[in-house]
């Protein structure tokens, strides 16, 4: 490890230190605000440190990591999201009497895991990143331990995650067994010349897909999603929905691009089936759902399905589309759960549709923000979601994945129904004027309100003027050697 390497790993290192620092501070003297500030600052610092790495082609830290434009972009995305989530968390946890401080440590750690994933080029680093992410998540999910739902969610997630990562590991082992290397590049070279993958290798890939698929919560590995989303505290749900998926997706893209998985019809078939199944199942499951958190969970499943479509395009345009969509999806999801978090009170999260009846007339601004988020999820113009969906469709049409595209269109119509249903509920007249809940201290309140406002603005900005973002993404992929010749 040279100094250069450290420089390139700066964001990760900052996060690690921040985690340690938090632990020490907690040991010394518990104070929510201080911990929160440290966390926020560390995220910001890590994010800023990325600007050092602007425009780098690729710096490999053999054999585990490579820091390239792609990685930098995804790390940046993850860090920004984590920052926003921590903002939301502050107000959310301020109302609660549990020990709040450890939460931030775990948050930082799991963020660290996600960051590690997107730059890893080796099974070991992959595995480490994944596990750091997961183990922290188990605790985060069940953080409000007095709620039995949290514990139920936690245990479910734990067992299933471990179960799936067992598959992942075994798959890796098989791949290692048949190729003799654990670096992506090595695997690529090993299989480059053989047209037909040997069965053992194929099985290995298959089992890895299970592990990845679980984290991405695509059908049929999706079943945990609604329960965990429902059980976990709202900010954590946002985290699972965004950061953990984002990290894994980044990894998936890198790996696939590296080994050029698109050559193998088997893998394509599997992914296509998974994609279609996710779209259909996700939307149909959400159709008459009355629990907002579960609706969002199911919708996230279908959105992963949409992402898969672009991913399967398998060319430059496709990956750009995936990335763009991911950004849009992050903004939207975090925003949505932010609203949920904001409306939650001490005993339970605001998750039932009933909690939203007539929201527009009670809290117009919040309602407007939430409406914007939902419309973005539905892919309506003026929002980021629309441009994202457009990008994905473009990718699909471009490579003539007609079946997938048709499915996408069909499903987004079904999807409209339940998004609009929530909106409709918010616009209904409240028959009984709900007594105004005690407002939080403005300082706290401000944090989340500000964040929401920013998110909404971003949403509209990206929706109306996507050129800038597209510009950035295209540069990123131009610089990334992985994409060479695509």
């Amino acid at each position, binding site marked *: 490890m040279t100094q250069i390497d450290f420089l390139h790993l700066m964001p990760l290192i900052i996060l690690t230190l921040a985690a340690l620092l938090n632990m020490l501070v907690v040991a010394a003297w518990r104070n929510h605000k201080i911990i929160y500030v440290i966390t926020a600052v560390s995220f910001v610092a890590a994010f800023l440190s990325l600007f050092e790495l602007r425009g780098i082609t690729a710096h490999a830290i053999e054999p585990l990591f490579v820091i390239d434009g792609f990685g930098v972009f995804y790390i940046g995305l993850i860090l920004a999201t984590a920052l926003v989530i921590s903002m939301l968390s502050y107000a959310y946890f301020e109302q609660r009497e549990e020990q709040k401080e450890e939460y931030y440590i775990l948050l930082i750690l799991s963020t660290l895991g996600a960051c590690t994933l997107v730059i890893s080029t080796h099974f070991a680093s992959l595995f480490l990143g994944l596990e750091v992410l997961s183990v922290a998540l188990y605790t985060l999910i069940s953080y409000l331990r007095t709620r039995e739902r949290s514990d139920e969610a936690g245990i479910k997630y734990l067992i*299933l995650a471990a179960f799936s990562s067992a598959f992942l590991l075994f798959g890796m082992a098989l791949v290692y067994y048949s190729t003799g290397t654990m670096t992506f590049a090595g695997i690529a070279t090993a299989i480059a010349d053989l047209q037909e993958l040997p069965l053992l290798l194929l099985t290995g890939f*298959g089992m890895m897909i299970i592990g990845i698929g679980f984290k991405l919560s695509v059908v049929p590995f999706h079943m945990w999603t609604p329960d965990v989303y429902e059980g976990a505290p709202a900010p954590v749900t946002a985290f699972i929905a965004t950061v953990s998926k984002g990290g894994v997706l980044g990894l998936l893209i890198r790996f696939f691009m590296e080994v050029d998985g698109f050559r193998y019809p088997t893998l394509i078939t*599997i992914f296509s089936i998974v994609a279609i199944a996710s779209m259909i*199942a996700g939307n149909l499951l959400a159709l008459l759902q009355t629990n907002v958190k579960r609706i969002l969970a199911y919708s996230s499943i279908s959105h992963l399905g949409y992402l898969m479509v672009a991913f399967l395009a398998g060319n430059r345009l496709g990956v750009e589309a995936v990335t763009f969509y991911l950004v849009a999806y992050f903004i939207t999801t975090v925003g949505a759960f932010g609203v949920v978090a904001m409306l939650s009170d001490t005993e339970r999260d605001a998750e039932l549709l009933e909690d939203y009846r007539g929201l527009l007339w009670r809290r117009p601004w919040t309602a407007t923000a939430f409406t914007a988020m939902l419309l973005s999820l539905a892919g309506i113009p003026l929002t980021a979601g629309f441009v994202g969906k457009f990008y994905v469709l473009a990718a699909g049409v471009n490579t003539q994945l007609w079946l997938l595209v048709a499915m996408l269109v069909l499903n987004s119509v079904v999807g409209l129904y339940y998004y609009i249903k929530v909106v409709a509920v918010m616009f209904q007249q409240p028959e009984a004027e709900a007594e105004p809940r005690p407002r939080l201290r403005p300082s706290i309140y401000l944090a989340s309100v500000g964040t929401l406002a920013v998110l909404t603005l971003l949403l509209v900005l990206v929706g109306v003027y996507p050129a800038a973002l597209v510009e950035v993404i295209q540069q990123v992929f131009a610089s990334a050697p992985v994409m060479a010749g695509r």
Partner: protein
Amino acid sequence: MENYIWLIPALPFLGSLLLILFGTRLSRAGVAILGVGSVGVSALLTILLGLQFLAEKPAFYHQEVWQWFNVAGFNPSIAFHLDALSIVFIFVITFVGFLIHLYSTAYMAGDTDFSRFFACMNLFVGSMLLLVMADNLLLLYFGWEGVGLCSYLLIGFWYKEPANGYAARKAFIITRVGDVAMAIGLFILFQTFGTLHIQTILSQAPEVWSVGAQAAVLVGLLLLGGAVGKSGQLPLQTWLPDAMAGPTPVSALIHAATMVTAGVYLIARMYVIFDLAPVAQMAVAVVGAVTLLLAGFSALTQYDLKRVLAYSTISQIGYMFLALGVGAWSAGIFHFMIHAFFKALLFLCAGAIILALHHEQDMRQMGGLRKSMPVVFWTFLIGAASLAALPVITAGFYSKDQILWYTLAGPQGSIWLYLAGLAGAFITSIYTFRMVFMTFYGEPKTQVAHPPGKVITIPLVILAILSLVGGFIELPHNFAHLALFSGLMAPVLPGITANELLAANEWLFQALAAVVSLGGVLVAYLFYQKSPALLASIERSSFAMALHRFWFSGWGFDALYDNLFVRPYVFLANLNKRDIIDSFYTGLARTAEGFHVMFSQTQSGVLRNYVVGIVFGAIMILTISLLL
């Protein structure tokens, strides 16, 4: 003078516009002045124009007000074409119209919607003038529909009574059926000639179409369809009797004198087409003949005074069609004019009677009015005589005799048509004098409330005079051969020459016609005056009763159409009220929800099932990788 042509239709329109806008604020006198005045002035203009026309004898006057629109060479104008034919029509429309307006001021005096009445009447006169003055078929169609609207508004004038509304709708819709045919005719004409300008079409048609050309026949029949709709001929005659629901002046003006003869005008106007399409022309004749008989028989059985007149109108227009059908163009138009006089007269008299008997229309409740309202009696008698075509003295005799004569002796004439006409004449005089005897003779049944005033009687007298002397401008060849009218028509409509053989003893047939009409009077006298018992005994027989019922119901056409079109349509409409197609989409929604329920079973919340899910996925993936 001819620069003021546009004023003739414009004035009534203006009048109605003003009445619509300010009618509610004006006093009754004001309304009357505006309403009657506008028509009066345009009548005056017409007469002046007519005199000038007679003096100058030009082919026609033409005036373009503005170009309506112009799309890819389809450029109809708001432009007027006045030749003898249209002049006769506008004369009748404005002059008779004026008289009837005058009469209405008294007739409608008591009505709350005084101004609305005159607004509609003026609007009607305007549209009717547009119809007959139009230089292109689209503008004609404009007027054509306009008069339809007015007749709708006026039939349903007393809207509080749902039956009237029904009659009005019936009239509008049935005439619309005819209009559709006409519209299609226009499409073909436009496609063929690239214009709807009447004179152009008339001049080009012989070049484009050979005699009997399929298209010409088609157009002819379609135009005929339009004509029968407006003129209440078979098979679209059913609306006219019901149209009597409107105020009597309306029946007089619209449903006797002017609008219903629009069909006659149309056919006469487009005579070239019919010349080129013998089949169509024969159809015209046949329609006329059949209609005049059917309507005549129905008229025999009616008790409602106005209904009798309505049926007689249908039958008389049948005569006009017959004339046009056999190519006796000017004879048809001549009869139109005379008919306008005496039928308007009869209606106005009927109106006077009805008013006097406070809206009693059933002839069985009348009688003995000879004494109580002499003026009405005499004028009505004159009108009746003219309708029954009593020889020599009445105008009706000359016009009808001409028709009968050419039906037989004309080049396209046929004995059957002639016999039909003759029989019609016989029936006509029977039902006419049946009216006379039932209303004016016998002992009074209802007391006369108040005898009609001057405003009512003056128009009666004028019309009575016209329906006597009107005939003398056109006398048969064999005595005092005088052909003012047909002379006037000659430049517009082709003349007709009688078969030489028959021409020799034309007087014979005139005598026959005279005998027939007189015979009719005699029969009527016998049955309704001398010995009603005789009639009663006949009517008692079951066959007669059935026949009576059948004729009374206008040969059951209403029932037929009801069962054939109206009921099925309404049934169908109500059957599909919920829109069957919609259920398909709702079905889709249901299916989706069904799937939702099915899927949500899998989310059991039981940890082990989730594990099973993953394992299932694993198996799927592995099998795929094994199979492929």
